[in-house]
């Protein structure tokens, strides 16, 4: 057996390898996103900002249901949309992550859960950045968007992020095994946006309906986020962040188990 020149390849622990892969993939994803075309970096920030602006404008135009106890309508909706997009983008970006990185599984170090986690991380960082931009700009033009309880707000933002990561881990594995799931998830996103109370307050709905809508963990995250942003905001009865954590952690565990159980099928070309 020849003595190899470069022993460092062999001496690495699994954790070192994983960290090297994550670092490399993060740089790659970030670079690929920013160099896709000339204005890629611009659209990365401008697209979600513009999307929220358009939604707010449309909703303001339609009017109705504008009275929200304890919060102004526009900031109330911006927070809802940003929170929802945090969840949605984590999920949707991850759905294609395994497929897009199939070529990399030829390197034994890379496993299917890596691109999913990296995309979630990148997406979360970008969305957090956008939230900060929104807060800064709104403050400058005189819309009150400074969180009343910044730490609590951070906690709820983090919770929604984790919910997105959980959903991403689970559904990225499921959608590789059963490709039809991808379509169902995409279709489900718009109804989910409406029943999550993003664009109109669920308080207006009859109580019996609210009870059902509270099955949806996103509602709990968004209401918690709004409570921490607006002092004196009148939230939905029964909103409870622990319920969201129950979902987030269960889905993370389930997703990781799926990724371990079906590792070879997810890797297969």
């Amino acid at each position: 057996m020849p003595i190899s020149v470069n022993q460092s390849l062999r001496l690495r622990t699994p954790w070192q390898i994983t960290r090297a892969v994550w670092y490399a993939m993060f740089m790659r994803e970030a670079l690929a996103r920013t160099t896709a075309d000339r204005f890629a970096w611009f659209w990365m920030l401008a697209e979600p900002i513009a999307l929220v602006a358009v939604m707010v404008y449309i909703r303001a135009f339609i009017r109705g249901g504008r009275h929200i106890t304890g919060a102004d309508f526009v900031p109330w909706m911006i927070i809802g949309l940003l929170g929802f997009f945090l969840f949605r983008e984590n999920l949707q970006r991850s759905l294609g992550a395994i497929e897009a990185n199939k070529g990399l599984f030829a390197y034994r170090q890379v496993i299917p859960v890596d691109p999913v986690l990296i995309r979630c991380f990148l997406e979360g960082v970008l969305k957090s950045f956008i939230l900060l931009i929104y807060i800064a700009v709104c403050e400058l033009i005189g819309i009150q968007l400074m969180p009343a309880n910044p730490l609590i707000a951070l906690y709820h933002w983090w919770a929604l992020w984790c919910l997105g990561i959980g959903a991403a881990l689970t559904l990225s594995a499921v959608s590789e095994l059963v490709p039809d799931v991808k379509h169902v998830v995409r279709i489900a996103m718009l109804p989910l946006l409406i029943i999550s109370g993003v664009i109109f307050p669920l308080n207006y709905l009859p109580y019996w309906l609210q009870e059902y809508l509270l099955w949806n963990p996103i509602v709990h995250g968004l209401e918690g986020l709004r409570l921490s942003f607006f002092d004196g905001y009148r939230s939905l009865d029964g909103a409870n962040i622990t319920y969201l954590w129950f979902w987030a952690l269960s889905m993370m565990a389930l997703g990781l188990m799926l990724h371990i159980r079906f590792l070879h099928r997810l890797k297969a070309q």
Partner: protein
Amino acid sequence: MISLSNVYKRYLGHHGSDWVLRDINLDIPGNVSVGLVGRNGAGKSTLLRLIGGMDTPTKGEVRRDCRVSWPIGLAGGFQGSMSGRQNVKFVGRIHQGDQGLDEIIRRVETFAEIGKAFDKPVKTYSSGMRARVAFGMSLAFEFDVYLSDEATAVGDQIFRRKAIKAFKERVGRSSLIIVSHAENIIKELCQAGIWLNEGGAQWYDDVNDALSDYHEYSSLNQEAGQ
């Protein structure tokens, strides 16, 4: 040393599936270069993928106690919008982190000889240029065993000769496992051979025996067909 014990492989599809490889038992010594021969569809590439760990056997076990490369010349992992240099950086980081990264990049750059194009997006490359970078990338890392799946068949004459020369320089330090239909290349680079036939694998200490058995069998088959 790479050892395969009771390895079975099949690909599941909608139309049933036959075993591609059946009960393969092989011990491939670390310092011997091996040529894989067999007709199309005999499972040469599948066996190579199993050895490289890109795929897992349906049954059985593959053990590697040396560093095995990915198939040389593999370009599937390239990200089109990133430059050749950035792609090399990525693979380097996966394999050994940031240390020695510059050395790896320099080696690939000198081997590939594609000039300024090294800093252009990979999607602007011709297939030959891609092959040069991909090939250089495999050689930039020190592996004990290099896997090659028809890799020497790409590129122009000069590059092909350069590739074979690069392989020959590695003999002694590292070994090769090659899938190729170009028999002169196999004869030139390999000592031992494996003949894949009807799901089974036969080991030969001399690659010429493997080739002659393979030829005999295929000419017999041809006659039987006529």
